[in-house]
């Protein structure tokens, strides 16, 4: 881990307005060499607009975007690797043909394929299982040795061992000195990042390590012999109640209010205050 140095990518007060809609509102974000930064947000929170500005596909209405110290351009694009959620592969070409095509576009020497991916080099991309398709997209995005890697939900849909192998590649890329920006809304991916920037309604709602983002957000935990009755009572009161095993949790709720509601409904229960999970914190931040 050698995070530091001048930022590879930065947004300072980045703002984007589409007519009446303020999609991104004064957002600050930096990615420095060696670090993995997670950009987290619900749909419509402004993630995609911010990424498009960083990639140079959209101009900000106000604020400043810099890639490698200059405004995004075709030149900066050559130092960037991008894997969209749809992977951006040509499904009717083989793995090797996709790689050759990308190498030609970037004027790079290409890369060696490893392991199972090498065995499948002549397979059509559309015939590969999702895990291998994802690895192919990574290999291609990394083939021109980008200084900044931008990944959209990089491990969605694969099993934990495949997910671990993909994160090994991402982490190795950062350790070699590149910066990585990951957009996601999954805890298993957020946990892998060094720092998180949480967007809600176009603004930065929280930023820092996972522990810092969760901070002192709490949930009320309800233990009761009749979770069904407790759930129905809290749900009817409009609380964001969730079922975890046979216990209930209400993120951001005042435990006394929960106790009163359950007492009024005649449901015996023990209510305690516990630290919120990342996902619960996110729901609380998005509702604020």
């Amino acid at each position: 881990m050698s995070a530091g140095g001048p930022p590879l990518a930065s947004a300072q007060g980045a703002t984007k307005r589409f007519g009446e809609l303020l999609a991104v509102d004064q957002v600050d974000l930096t990615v420095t060499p060696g670090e993995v930064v997670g950009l987290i947000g619900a749909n419509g929170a402004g993630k995609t607009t911010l990424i498009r500005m960083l990639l140079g596909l959209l101009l900000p209405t106000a604020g400043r975007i810099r890639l490698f110290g200059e405004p995004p351009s075709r030149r900066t694009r050559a130092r960037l690797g991008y894997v969209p959620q749809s992977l951006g592969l040509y499904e009717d070409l083989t793995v090797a043909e996709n790689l050759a095509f990308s190498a030609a576009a970037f004027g790079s020497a290409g890369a060696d394929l490893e392991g199972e991916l090498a065995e499948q080099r002549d397979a059509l991309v559309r015939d590969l299982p999702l895990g291998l398709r994802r690895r192919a997209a990574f290999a291609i995005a990394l083939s021109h040795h980008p200084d900044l890697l931008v990944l959209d939900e990089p491990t969605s849909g694969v099993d934990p061992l495949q997910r671990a192998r993909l994160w090994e590649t991402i982490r190795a890329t950062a350790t070699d000195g590149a910066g990585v920006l990951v957009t996601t809304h999954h805890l298993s991916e957020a946990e892998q990042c060094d720092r998180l920037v949480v967007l809600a309604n176009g603004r930065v709602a929280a930023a820092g390590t996972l522990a810092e983002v969760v901070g002192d957000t709490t949930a009320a935990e309800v233990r009761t012999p009749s979770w069904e009755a407790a759930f129905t009572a809290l749900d009817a009161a409009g609380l964001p109640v969730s079922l975890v095993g046979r216990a209930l949790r209400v993120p951001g709720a005042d435990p006394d209010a929960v106790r009163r509601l359950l007492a009024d409904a005649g449901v015996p229960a023990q209510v305690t205050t516990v630290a919120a999970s990342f996902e619960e914190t996110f729901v609380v931040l998005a509702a604020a």
Partner: protein
Amino acid sequence: MSQGRAVWGCQDLGVRYGGVVALEDVTLEVPAGSVAAVVGGDGAGKTTLLRALAGAVRPAAGVVLRPDERRLGYVSAGPGVWADLTVDENLSFAGRAYGLPAGELDRRTAALLERTDLASARDRLAGRLSGGMRQKLALAMAVLHRPDLLILDEPTTGVDPVSRAELWRLLASAAAGGAAVVVGTTYLDEAERAATVLVLDRGRALLAGTPDEVLTATPGLVVEGPAKPEGVASWPRGARWRAWSPDGPAPPGTSPVAPDLEDAVIVAQLRQALRRAA
């Protein structure tokens, strides 16, 4: 709720597509009023299992225990709604397919539109809804008739955390009302909320039980350290590394940690790879 504590699911289920084994020896029990999670990546057999539970795939072996098809709700992976119909039309079409009387259909539709925050979108075409809204509509359609068994195939894939929390609240509310709920997912943090978890890998059960049972059964030691340890299988967790030491002790520079479900599945997959290699 025709039966108080009915148990749905399957026993020793096998499914073949042509000569290919899609599922083998899979057992799942889902009591009424509980949520079971079926976890697996692409190609693990989740969809096949859920389709077999819904009666859409004929088993080659074993038994499926499911209610009459009118007492079943099923949301397939993918859209699950008619894109060219409005929200209202989707609900009334589904309601009539289940044979709901008009008065009952109106009452359930109004209640579910409110629950799902779709009331203001009732005249919108389903194809123009966001991913989260579309999944909420699909779920509302599947619970209109208060099914005894509710089957959902990856309802939260591509759905943001706010909508995901709402979807889980809806399916927990179906369980609170007495339904047995089976949810397919690729995310283990979601599976941790279920009463029981079945992890599939290449068509077979890799792990099964309550989340606590699965964690407790993890063999050997899961350890964590600041660097990638030598000589043991390891995987990154943020900037640190986790590793599995099958026979203990903790490798130098690491210390034991309590595994979570993600670790437990990685260890089980590593063990299986070792067994296959042997």
